[in-house]
């Protein structure tokens, strides 16, 4: 019934060994049938030549904003799942800040059901940590988990009450759920547009200082330590924030962290252009912070790269920076821009980048990533040399708020194998 594929001559990333080597991979009936140095082409086999290309398990994104329900004009579960696939992501975790938010079993079940119907990138809901994301009462974590939630978070907001955060950690810990924190102390960030730095001092923008992240991480680590529960720091951005996570992990406190492609590649200097596409929360930081993030990737202090894919309508973004909403989309460009800017110049090894996109994030939510004979087909083919333009034609998201929009990029996902389905881009 389904086609048999032979992907020939590519470099295969084996996640368990964290190694890459040349191999042929045969896919049949939704599973990886065979892996060997060379495989003969059987009859009725579709051959995909993958010399100088890369095979990896499908990527995992811990942090995306799909705007359904509420703002389907900017992204739906379907368009977001397509954007994910086109970027090589076969698993994406949807943050709960929709309208209404994912704070009930029914909302979470809706996302899982829709994800199953679509059969595109698998969408895993993240439940709101508090009812209505209001920071006051914790949601029904057990029921949410039953409905398929993989973590809880009030992303967008820091849980201001230390008492509520403590209970969130205690209760989530009991159920084996991770609590994801958006670590920015809000009283220090009111109306802030960008990082507090020499650039903001020149441009006169209101700020969201790096110390607000430190303050928030410091407190949350204290609470993770006292509860013994798993804390995950979303989109970490500062050198000192990374240092706090490093110290906590050395003390065996269960803390993990993710970084976004934009914080790994861009700095607050970009705001000198007054382009609202560079307005993100937390804001782009300094070069020193950016370098600290890169070091933390290498040291294993940061376990995952997450896009924080945040679609916004053009009419919202094309405004004065004070008024424009924060965030940029990233699903379709993440692997390309990081490969070109970090792997090609030798700043980080390809195996590390792929770990940060696969086993790293999966382990945060207690999932496994495999690439082995007999396992389900969940595989992408990436051509690091392919050139393409991220534009209206190639874009799969309903929004295009990205500094890479309109730019020529290098490195492209060409095929995604997910169960019995095959997508080529």
């Amino acid at each position, binding site marked *: 019934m389904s086609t048999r594929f032979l992907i020939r001559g590519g470099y295969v990333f084996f996640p368990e060994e964290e190694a890459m080597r040349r191999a042929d991979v045969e896919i049949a009936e939704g599973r990886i049938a065979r892996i060997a140095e060379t495989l003969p082409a059987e009859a009725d086999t579709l051959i995909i030549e993958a010399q100088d290309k890369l095979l990896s398990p499908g990527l995992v994104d811990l942090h995306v904003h799909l705007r359904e329900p509420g703002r389907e004009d900017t992204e739906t579960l379907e368009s977001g799942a397509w954007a994910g696939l086109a970027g090589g992501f076969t698993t994406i975790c949807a943050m709960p800040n929709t309208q209404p938010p994912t704070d009930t079993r029914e909302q979470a079940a809706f996302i899982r059901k829709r994800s199953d119907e679509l059969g595109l990138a698998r969408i895993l809901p993240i439940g709101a940590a508090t009812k209505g994301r209001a920071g006051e009462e914790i949601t029904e974590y057990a029921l949410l988990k039953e409905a398929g939630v993989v973590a809880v978070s009030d992303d967008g907001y820091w849980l201001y009450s230390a008492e509520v955060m403590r209970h969130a950690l205690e209760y989530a810990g009991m159920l084996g759920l991770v609590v994801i924190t958006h670590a920015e102390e809000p009283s220090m960030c009111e109306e802030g547009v960008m990082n507090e*730095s*020499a650039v*903001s001092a020149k441009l006169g923008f209101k700020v969201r200082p790096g110390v607000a992240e430190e303050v928030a991480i410091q407190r949350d680590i204290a609470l993770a330590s006292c509860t013994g529960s798993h804390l995950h720091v979303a989109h970490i951005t500062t050198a000192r924030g990374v240092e706090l996570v490093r110290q906590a992990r050395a003390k065996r406190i269960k803390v993990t962290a993710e970084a976004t492609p934009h914080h790994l590649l861009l700095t607050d200097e970009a705001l000198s252009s007054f382009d609202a596409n560079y307005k993100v929360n937390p804001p782009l930081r300094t070069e020193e912070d950016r370098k600290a993030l890169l070091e933390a990737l290498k040291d294993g202090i940061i376990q995952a790269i997450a896009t924080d894919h945040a679609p916004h309508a053009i*009419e919202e973004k094309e405004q*004065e920076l*004070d008024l424009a909403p924060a965030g940029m989309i990233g699903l379709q460009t993440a692997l390309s821009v990081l490969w070109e800017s970090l792997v090609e110049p030798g700043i980080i090894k390809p195996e590390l980048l792929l770990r940060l996109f696969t086993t790293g994030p999966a382990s945060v939510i207690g999932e496994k990533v495999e690439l082995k004979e007999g396992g389900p087909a969940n595989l992408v083919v990436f051509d690091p040399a392919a050139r393409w333009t991220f534009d209206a034609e190639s874009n799969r998201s309903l929004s295009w708020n990205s500094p890479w929009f309109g730019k020529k990029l290098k490195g492209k996902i060409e095929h995604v194998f997910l169960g019995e389905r095959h997508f080529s881009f």
Partner: protein
Amino acid sequence: MTWTHKNLLGLEGLSREEITFILDTAERFHEVLDRPIPLVPALRGKTILNMFYEASTRTSTSFAMAAKRLSADVVGFSKASSSVKKGETLLDTVRTIESMRVDGVVIRHSCPGAARFIAQRIDAFVINAGDGAHEHPTQGLLDLFAARKRLGSFEDRHLVVVGDITHSRVVRSAIYGFSTMGAEITVCGPATLIPPHFKKAFPNVGIETDFDMLLADADMIMMLRLQLERQGKGLFPSIREYRKLYCLTAERMKKAKPDVVVMHPGPMNRGIEIEPAVADGPNSVVLAQVRAGVAVRMAVLYILAGGELEH
């Protein structure tokens, strides 16, 4: 000299020659203001749109007067009287004014970059009349104009700017303008009102929290208006304490050079950042600044409109 800029969005990046050219042009218009009929036909037939998204009396009046003295037609709106209140975006407002075909736009807005946002999207020239805490270039120019009248030149002159440095567009334009013209600059205010990375942003600008330390060496003292609502944000504890630390009093003037030039962009909080005796005293150029404002704005409008100066 040949003027090459379409807009005036800030003093950052302008050369000494360009600033001098504006100031020299302003000198000629300054004389015009003394005439029985202070009017020149330089911008006859041109239309200038004043867009004031923030309350402003003196700057909007000054721009309107400057345009009228040049015989331009002036139309304008302020936030309270426009459709901005009805929720029209800046982009739509821009498209609207573009279709009305004005020659120049003067914009005051609370967001840094707002003037640039407009300038990137329309053919008319744009003058930034203050964008948030970013720049206020014509203020910087009028400060230079008024100070130059007293001091002649700026080489080896020391400007001290006192007050809320963080939230001031006046200080940023002053830094670009005065440093380009050769002056040394020190900013002064409470630690809560100076951005933490100011030194890195402006390596050649001195930072001092003790006003009294700076008095003896200053050739120019620019007092900034204290926004009283900052107290509610915890940025300073009380007016009483602010006054003690940073008010330019007659007592402090005794420690300053006898010919120090005292400036204030206005409107003044008399008795808070500046004592009335000082504001109205012989060192003060506050009213000269207002007059300079009209001349400088005439010069800028004239240069950007590409007018030819007769006589």
